[in-house]
């Protein structure tokens, strides 16, 4: 049995579609402004409803924390900055001070790393002993490959052990794109893809053990790049950290489309 509908709404009645009309984007703007400005008091904010005044004092105002500085992961901001950042392993929201020991290969990596570190860590890069004693985190960066890297890692471990703070290994891997030729015409922007991987915290009183463990964890984080995370945790690959190679070669290998199906294919490989 077929249902009966009002004549003006009968779905079987086919009417000619209305021609598209230009939309006035400012239509209704004054009404919107009036509504938004209703009960607004300059310098004192909006009037509060009576029920809100009857709530307990601590419930009247919102204190919105931003647990992770995620601006770079915002798709719009990321597009503006020509970078797409994916942060993994950073799930602990503890505000405890720590020593972030990062593997970076360039200044651009460091800039992204600084953006990805949670603001609640209050990270500093200078006056380290004083900062640690005051409950601020410190950031130590090295390439984990040069001759001086062992000393840097050892000193970071020493500091962490002395102040009883954990060491958090971090690795920054960038899928850079080749620089674009300047053009007067607008061209689509290519976006860098950056992975920031945080490892598990290392806590130990022995600085030598902390340094060794830091090397291992950074090696595993790097190995995730060359293999996969599951192969690393299940012991199917050994850490290739010590495998010394120029940055361009690592980038070349990582962007091989045959090696990594899950990742967006880059234009380096034709």
């Amino acid at each position, binding site marked *: 049995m077929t249902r009966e509908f009002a004549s003006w709404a009968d779905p079987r009645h086919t009417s000619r579609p209305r021609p598209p009309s230009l939309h006035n984007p400012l239509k*209704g703007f004054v009404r919107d402004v009036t509504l938004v400005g209703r009960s607004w008091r300059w310098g004192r904010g909006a009037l509060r409803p009576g029920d809100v005044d009857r709530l307990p004092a601590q419930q009247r105002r919102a204190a919105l924390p931003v647990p992770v500085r995620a601006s770079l992961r915002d798709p719009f901001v990321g597009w503006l900055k020509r970078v797409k950042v994916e942060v993994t392993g950073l799930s602990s929201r503890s505000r405890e001070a720590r020593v972030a020991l990062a593997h970076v290969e360039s200044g651009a990596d460091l800039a992204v790393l600084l953006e990805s570190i949670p603001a609640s860590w209050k990270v500093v890069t200078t006056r380290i002993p004083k900062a640690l004693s005051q409950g601020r985190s410190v950031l130590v960066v090295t390439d984990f490959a040069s001759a001086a890297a062992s000393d840097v890692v050892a000193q970071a471990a020493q500091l962490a052990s002395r102040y009883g703070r954990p060491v958090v290994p971090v690795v920054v891997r960038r899928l850079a794109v080749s620089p674009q030729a300047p053009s007067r015409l607008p061209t689509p922007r290519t976006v860098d893809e950056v992975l920031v991987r945080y490892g598990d915290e290392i806590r130990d009183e022995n600085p030598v053990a902390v340094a060794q463990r830091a090397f291992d964890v950074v090696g595993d984080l790097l190995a995730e790049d060359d293999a996969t995370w599951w192969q690393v945790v299940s012991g199917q690959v050994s850490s290739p950290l010590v495998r010394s190679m120029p940055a361009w070669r690592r980038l070349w290998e990582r962007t091989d489309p045959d090696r990594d199906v899950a990742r967006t294919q880059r234009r380096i490989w034709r």
Partner: protein
Amino acid sequence: MSRPGFALEVDERTPPTLVRSASDVRLERFSLGTQIVYPPDGQAWGDAVSATAEALSAPLDGRSFAGRLWSGMRLTITFADISALTPPAGDDPRRVVVEQLLTTAAEAGVDDVVLIAATGLRRRLGPEDMRRLLGERVSRSFASDPRLTSHDASDDSGLVTIGESDGVQLRFNRRVVESDLVVHVSVVTSPEHAGWDEFISGLASAETIDLAYGWNGDPKPVREAVADRVDAMAVAVVLGQPSYHGPVRFLSAREWEWSIKDQAAYLTSRRALASAPVQAGRYLYAARPVAYPVLGVVAGPVDEVRDAAQATLTYEQCVTVKGAADVLVTGVPSVHAAAPDGDGSPLGAAWWVLHHAYGLGGATPIVRDGGAVIAFHPLGDRFSTRHHGAAADLIAEVLPEASDPAEIASRFLPRFAADPWYTDLYRQRGAYHPLHAFHQWFDLQPAIAAMGDIIFVGANRRTAEVMGFRAATTYADALEIASTRLGRRPAITYVRDAVGVQVAVS
């Protein structure tokens, strides 16, 4: 500490209140005495890593996850799909849980591990979805590998018979049934989440799901058969109200706490979305991740985990209102459980209002029998027919013929279910299973039967008429329509955001 939700009674000082209508946002002035339900603020930022580690080492039944593993066993990890967490999380807690499960399994020497998204009749997940849910590490580890897959409710080779009921073979995911241990990972943000129902509706065959949750369905025999055959452990992450930050903070901030920046952002968004194509609104909301506070992680037997998780959720989310309302008012966000991609059909919007929002009161409805529901949604025809092809055909072909669910179930459902075109779209093209649209229609029936008027503000009149609803141009017009039945001064309850809140009627 998280700030609890509360019911605000509108007075002269109450500012206009935000209402969402798909991708559109607007401010609406509600009449004096209207109760506005504000959800809790997401302030209690729990630590998912430590909470998960604690839950896995000390489950509710005392049998730790590590203690149930042995080298050479078959381990399957199933997880709730994208519809369980809308809007999407910036850092999905399922990633944390799955990573910890896999790490523990690797330490125990378990090599035979399979991960299955419990999608049921919903669309099967693609690589991008997997990456969003499980993170780069897990998704890349198992990319292009049959060990990471979505359940296929129409794949005969992937299903195995576990019993029979009413002449229908009860079939379930073969790998799940043949595994030594199955761990099901849930995120709990509403009463529908976690438990055997989520597990079964995500991993059974289409016929079995229809038998259990279709028209006049009975899930009990299926539950018993599955519980008898599957050694399952559940892990549930209980999440609080999502909070928006940055330029869209106004979506979750209470109106009297809007700063000048929030007001400017609201005005800009409203103007921009009014002029932009509908896809812009979808992109703005569906692609923007939000932060969820972690309220707790529970592990253990499926039933116990569901009870414990739901108890935590109810404690955190519950807002008490004074008496059942004559009129329930609610908006429909662009991204919700029936439209996780922000491209939902009118049927999905109606499901959100008449199943989800109408059911926020649990056993005690928020709105009295014979009352009215006023919702804000365009019920437009510009939705993804790739994802919701069967829903489009149900609205265009079935509902003009019949609206009675029993008649639809007997006359139309078998034809849709047997149509190889829909099956192929579901299995290969990322479409929802044709039965999904029918089940959504069935889910609406309690509210349709109980309500005197169901009015959509700003809706397409034809679509509303076909679905048996009424369309109004403005909220005032909708109240005018409702007043013919409910009088001039009805008791009104407006649920400002139906995500992350439950309503108790005093």
